[in-house]
């Protein structure tokens, strides 16, 4: 991939839907999980560090244009003759 393609990180439409789902599920469940874990161990430090770890893991999964997000590229129909004016 060229540098421009890497920096842009384009993924196809099905991949975008997958990425959106992953973001929503991971963020909401990590909020809940880090509150519960911190409350059980009675330490605010544990809450904040589990949340931070989940954020870092999420950004590693969702931000780069991994091949799994590019499995369903758009199929363009073939070139047809010019329509007569």
């Amino acid at each position: 991939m060229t540098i421009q393609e890497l920096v842009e990180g384009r993924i196809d439409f099905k991949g975008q839907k997958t990425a959106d789902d992953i973001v929503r599920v991971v963020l909401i469940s990590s909020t809940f999980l880090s509150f519960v874990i911190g409350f059980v161990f009675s330490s605010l430090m544990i809450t904040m560090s589990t949340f931070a770890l989940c954020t870092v893991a999420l950004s590693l999964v969702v931000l780069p244009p991994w091949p799994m997000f590019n499995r369903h590229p758009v199929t363009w129909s073939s070139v047809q003759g010019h329509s007569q004016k």
Partner: protein
Amino acid sequence: MHSIYARVNNASALWSTCVMVLLGAVALSSFLFNADPKGDLGIVSLKVYHSKTRRYPFKNEEIGFVKFNLSADLTPLFNWNTKQLFVYLEAEYASAQGVNNTVVIWDRIVRSKEDATIDVVQKDKYRLRDLSGSFSNVLAGQYSLKYNVMPYVGVLSYGEAARTSEPIEFPAARDSVS
């Protein structure tokens, strides 16, 4: 979501909402912890002396010197959301005209559960003086130990941990021994 920038934009919007909800939940969890520790406070001695005011050395005023015996166990106040405790000893008295006064004469910042037991016989840290400059028009006063719980996230809360059992009269002012 078509580019990295778009995914960052989208994810950070939900992320900031999640952070706010998490911190709000931590702040609300403080209301689950209702500790009400009590201790003992006794006044060993209370003396009133003539002295010069701090700012104007030509003016006279009366200063009270308090020695107190204080023991309190404030460890129940430390939950996961407690950052520190501000503990202070107040002298409360009313003037003869009926005006109530409270003067903070000693305080301490408690930063961890291990430091939360207080067992001291000490003298006051700050001057006990009346605004009028004299204790002659003043009724007997009570002394109380109050605390302020400072959370990491959330609302401040206040409480009283100890109080003298009966009011203590202010003695007549005397000259200090020089």
